[in-house]
């Protein structure tokens, strides 16, 4: 199904405010203003798209002229596409003014195809949009029909017949091709299709012929969905929009149960779960939850969803109520058939993973971390924090820096960014500091060990060689400091930094 919005930019503005004079949207191209979009009223006065704005002004004095805002139009189209998600999960944007809905296998839910088309266009039309729709076997054919013969429904294979009488502009050719076609005297698509394809591709390029074939239903062009297609869906429609929290949670529970039923039959579990709340006034809210391991327990699902709902920055606003709630398994994975294990270790691991999932839902998965070793000798990048939910980060082994029996060579805490220390008193060229000031406090060094020289990665050509010292102050605090660069390296004395806190 293709939906074509003939006057999206003007509809967007006139939905918000009333204009006395006919509304025209202007657009600047080649240093001149042109008519970009116009209202039905303006069209009746003889204005047309692409007309120089000065001409339009000369023809009609009273015009409301506003500049084009393509981004706002795109956002609006995106919102409408969101709204259309309630009919089928596969909605495609065809910028700037069309939508494709893949209704294969969805039409019978709304009666017949004709009934569905009528319902969709009427519902969108009642919101103040000029929309035309058509249904055909291929997307391009549907779009052409929506523009030039709205309301047409073509059964699969009948495209050629219905498309043939449409004017050649329905193919959306660029100016050059359009001129060439007109020169050749081809006015309808049917006439063009009668020509030999080799002839056409010679003259007009292969892409034109490919478009023509798709248009006539001879070839198919796959749609690119806006968002990844969910593996499984379970949804609940309400005759009356629901507002109360109790009904919403109750329906989430039934949805989770039915989804888990399907998952169980297929031997799968969900890794990414999405709940979509369609508001009666067209707004759509989505919640996504990631889990560490395939999940198939409705109770756990509901618990995670409720937790996510609780942590929303602005709570779920039902407005005038939700008329459709949908639960999607965006990513489902095979689960290994597990017998309930009496092995307490496995049970414990599962419980910990579930805890990590819950924490990740509440605080975001980037805030619940574990550490994997990195093959780097630079202290701050030797270990990297990764989301604890992700199991894919295979780390190497952690390497001990100290010899057995030695005290720790690396501090337990590293400052996020090494902090510069001042008033450093150190012997030249590579002695440890005997006194330094850090965070407004003067520290007297009583013991020091070093230097441990760590060179930066030469292939990155940045950073100076660091000479690290372990120092102990008079109070017994142990710090990890380094001298950035050597004394003789450049004219000014090197800077000193404090990077870590030993215990």
């Amino acid at each position, binding site marked *: 199904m293709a939906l074509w919005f003939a006057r999206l930019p003007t509809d967007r503005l006139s939905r918000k405010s009333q204009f006395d004079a006919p509304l025209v949207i202007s657009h600047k191209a080649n240093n001149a203003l042109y008519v970009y979009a116009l209202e039905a009223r303006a069209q009746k006065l003889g204005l047309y798209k692409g007309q120089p704005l000065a001409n339009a002004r000369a023809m009609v004095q009273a015009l409301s002229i506003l500049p084009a805002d393509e981004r706002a139009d795109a956002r609006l189209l995106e919102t409408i596409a969101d709204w259309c998600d309630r009919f089928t999960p596969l909605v495609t944007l065809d910028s700037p003014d069309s939508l494709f809905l893949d209704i294969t296998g969805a039409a019978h839910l709304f009666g017949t195809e004709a009934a569905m088309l009528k319902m969709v266009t009427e519902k969108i039309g009642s919101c103040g949009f000029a929309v035309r729709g058509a249904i055909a076997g291929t997307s391009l054919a549907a779009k052409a029909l929506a523009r030039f013969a709205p309301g047409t429904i073509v059964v699969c294979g009948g495209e050629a017949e219905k498309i043939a009488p449409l004017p050649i502009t329905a193919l959306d050719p660029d100016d050059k091709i359009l001129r060439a076609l007109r020169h050749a005297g081809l006015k309808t698509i049917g006439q063009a299709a009668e020509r030999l394809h080799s002839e056409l591709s010679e003259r007009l390029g292969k892409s034109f012929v490919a478009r023509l074939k798709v248009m006539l239903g001879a070839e198919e062009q796959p749609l690119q969905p806006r968002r990844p297609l969910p593996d499984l869906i379970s949804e609940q429609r309400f005759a009356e929009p629901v507002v109360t929290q109790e009904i919403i949670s109750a329906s989430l529970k039934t949805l989770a149960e039915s989804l888990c039923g399907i998952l169980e039959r297929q031997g799968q579990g969900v890794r990414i779960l999405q709940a979509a709340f369609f508001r009666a006034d067209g707004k759509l809210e989505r919640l996504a939850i990631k889990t560490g391991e395939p999940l198939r327990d409705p109770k756990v699902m509901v618990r995670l969803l409720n937790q996510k709902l609780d942590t929303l920055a602005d709570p779920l606003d039902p407005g005038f109520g939700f008329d459709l709630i949908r639960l999607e398994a965006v990513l489902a994975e095979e689960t290994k058939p597990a017998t309930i294990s009496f092995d307490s270790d496995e049970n414990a691991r599962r419980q910990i993973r579930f805890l990590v999932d819950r924490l990740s839902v509440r605080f975001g998965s980037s805030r619940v971390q574990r550490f994997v070793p990195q093959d780097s000798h630079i202290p701050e990048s*030797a270990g990297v924090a990764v989301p604890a939910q992700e199991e894919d980060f295979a780390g190497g082994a952690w390497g001990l820096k100290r010899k057995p029996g030695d005290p720790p060579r690396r501090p337990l805490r590293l400052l996020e960014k090494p902090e510069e220390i001042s008033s450093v008193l150190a012997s030249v060229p590579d002695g440890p500091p005997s006194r330094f000031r850090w965070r407004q406090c003067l520290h007297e060094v009583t013991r020091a060990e070093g230097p441990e020289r760590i060179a930066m990665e030469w292939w990155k050509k940045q950073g100076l060689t660091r000479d690290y010292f372990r120092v102990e102050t008079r109070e017994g605090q142990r710090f990890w400091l380094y001298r950035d660069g050597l004394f003789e390296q450049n004219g000014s004395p090197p800077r000193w930094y404090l990077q870590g806190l030993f215990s």
Partner: protein
Amino acid sequence: MNKTEQLAELRHSLARYALPPERAPIATGHPQADAVLGGGLRPGSLHEVFATGWSAGSFAALLAMLAAGKKTLFWVQPDYEAMEYGAFSPNGLLELGGDPRGLIQVAARNATEALSAANDVLACPHVGALLLEIEGMPKCLDLVASRRLSLTAGESGVTVFLLRNGAQAQPSAALTRWQVSSAPSPAHDDDWGNPLFDAHLIRHRAGGLGEFLMQWNPEHACFKTADIGAVVRAPAHRPAVTQIAI
């Protein structure tokens, strides 16, 4: 025996089955401290560590490491603490004899979030131990909050260490309270640098108090008596009169 009594008897015997098994105390390895604590820190309870200075907070981390053993250690740290006192470094934990693979860090945005995350973690009995870091004296950490921590810990048996940096002691439900500062390494020790703490047990609901000089032994991953000779040197920030004799 009538029916009611019989039922009560049955209930009672059932409840005994549901009781958590008697948990062994967590020995610190420091003989005097363990003696005062009655064998070690009691698991499934709340222990507070008040740290003076920048690096004394590691005392709580080491205790948590001891308590967690081979199980997962959760470290809940608000962002501000990571900025002020440094972020956890896995290599540092390894150097101290711990295992970075068994650690999960939760970075909370503020103290309130940290507390709620801590309550979640504590509810899971399979967690080894929890280290919760809270700086200063936020309003959300009141007697109710610490009581809740302590109760949840008691139910699940997870030991929780509450590390307070830059805070004054205030009423709480903690079983033990420690005031810890780093101590200078012994004068004769050439191999200096093992964590050494001047730890004061200033509150203990179930026993006596004490002041200990505890040194961490990374090889055996436990505390030991510091080998400092006869007398501890006076820490610079305290007058020499209050020298502690061991």
